[in-house]
């Protein structure tokens, strides 16, 4: 270390006023942006909890909607409808997504694998309303009316790319030594993949599935002209079905105060449903025997 040619004090003076000022300004700017970004977040959650809990009541959770303009009623059929549509979506989308993820991780080190990888990234960016159009074209036009099935198909298409990519990532985390050990014992490849690799990565894959689920649970746009909405109870797959996000949208843009109140309650219920679903599955995964190494 050579001796500094100037003393620390004079070096400090060389740091001109402008440079010191701009340094402080930049720091202040960064802190300021964080505060500005946090304001809407706090405002949205605060309003949601404040308005939502204020309007939530037993009738909301147990009754079907009243005719426009009348006070009272609830969204029970929409909550059930959402669950129906999400179940269909998950039944179609989850196995497909996991399967494609397995392909990418275990067999996908080639041109075709790269193509599938690129396609799932592309699908991830397709606007949800466009997916709705496609579900309308392939299901609704064929059935001749709006249906829960069409809504489920739209949501399934939206779930697949997310699940595919997270499954692939999680499977690639599983050490190759585990696969080799299984092969060494003479376990066939399919058994290795299902019982060793997939099982080791279970918790990660379930997290990916829940991410996809949480993302589509609040989707409204693809349901507008597939599930369409319904004022009454419906459990049939081939009939128009109410969904919570759809109902929130309809009520929010309506001119009635009581419907606005119910829109807030619906939004709160939607958020609570999403958070509970995700938390419950994670809890089960962590507690149960499913917890993997990865």
């Amino acid at each position, binding site marked *: 270390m050579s001796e500094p040619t100037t003393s620390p004090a004079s070096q400090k003076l060389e740091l001109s006023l402008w440079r010191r000022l701009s340094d402080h300004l930049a720091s202040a700017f960064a802190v300021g942006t964080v505060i500005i*970004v946090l304001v809407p977040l706090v405002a949205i959650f605060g309003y949601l909890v404040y308005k939502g809990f204020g309007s939530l009541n037993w009738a909301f959770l147990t009754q079907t909607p009243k005719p426009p303009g009348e006070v009272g009623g609830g969204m029970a059929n929409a909550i059930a409808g959402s669950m129906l549509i999400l179940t269909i979506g998950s039944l179609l989308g989850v196995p497909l997504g996991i399967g494609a993820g397995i392909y990418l991780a275990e067999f996908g080190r080639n041109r075709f694998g790269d193509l599938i990888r690129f396609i799932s990234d592309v699908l991830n960016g397709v606007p949800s309303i466009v997916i709705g159009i496609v579900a309308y074209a392939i299901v609704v036009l064929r059935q001749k009316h709006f249906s829960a099935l069409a809504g489920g198909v739209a949501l399934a298409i939206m779930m697949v790319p997310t699940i595919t990519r997270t499954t692939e990532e999680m499977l690639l985390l599983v050490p190759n030594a585990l696969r080799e050990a299984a092969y060494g014992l003479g376990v066939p490849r399919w058994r290795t993949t299902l019982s060793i690799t997939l099982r080791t990565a279970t918790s990660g894959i379930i997290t990916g599935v829940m991410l996809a689920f949480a993302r589509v649970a609040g989707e*409204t746009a693809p349901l507008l002209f597939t599930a369409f909405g319904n004022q009454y109870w419906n459990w049939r797959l081939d009939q128009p079905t109410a969904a919570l996000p759809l109902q929130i949208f309809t009520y929010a843009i309506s001119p009635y105060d009581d419907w606005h109140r119910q829109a807030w309650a619906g939004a709160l219920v939607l958020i609570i449903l999403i958070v509970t679903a995700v938390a419950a599955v994670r809890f089960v995964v962590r507690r149960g025997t499913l917890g993997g190494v990865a």
Partner: protein
Amino acid sequence: MANQALFRPQMTGPQPIAGQKIKKRASPLLTSSDGVFADRVFGWAILGCALIVLGILALIVWQLVSRSQLSWHAFGWKFFWGQDWDPVNDHYGALPFVYGTLVSSFLALIIAVPLAVGVGVFTTEMCPKWLRGPLSFTTELLAAIPSVIYGLWAIFVLVPVLRNYVQPFLARTLGWTGLFEGPPYGIGMLAAGIILAIMIIPIISSITREVLAVVPQHQREAVLALGATRSEMIRIGVLRNARAGIVGGIILGLGRALGETMAVTMVIGNRPEIAKSLFAPGYTMASVLANEFSEAAGDLYLSALIEIGLALFLVTIIVNALARFLVWSVTRGQPARARV
């Protein structure tokens, strides 16, 4: 076949030889033929899943292209330059929607980019360690809120605030630019831009964080050793190296803003007009689909709407592919070049 295995147990184990394919398996679970057959079935099933992913994209393209033919033959390229959207007389021009989508998205970028990059820089470069986790968790929480809830909040909180405070203020101070004039409805292009900005900030800031994290530490140390202040270090040593990745994040945010439907539909005013003022109501490609698709009566009407969907699809694909390429070039490409 599994039953047969019970009668003919394998008494000798296989003698594996390096490089030779094992023909007989000693697995207690399955006979050799089972394994081979099941492996083949499994392989085909898995390949099938991958092919279905390919099929979904093909299906989307095919459905959009074939069902928009009617409108394409009727209007051609003029479809995107026509200004009147007239379902009654079956005449369709999509320019107001294209304009609304572009203006609201770019407005959102103008608001979101400085904020999101600021948050990204703060979390990676300045933030104390204990705050880093909670802060990124909180910004990611913004991304988990469904867009219909953003819309709900915008209608009942954002729009009144804009109408009563922000718009009168903007009209007084910046009214001369022509961008902020007309009656302050609250709803309109400005509200749409702001709610979109809130929605894309988490994407841009998380990508920014990701690319800043891969800038090598010695870049920072080198710039600091030359006597730079912290802000100079961030500007010269960090941001300049991560530039392409940050631009990628911004474009990814743009892709999301272009396709965003519900929140925008709820606050933009839904009027197919082109106005200079940001206070005026507008319409976007996604919101016209949301509002009119289920009620489109005529074949040509439906076809025109699907053509809008096709255009939206193509634009978002190009935008997303570009963004992924840019982010990838930073996070997985060559180590950042020193260009001080």
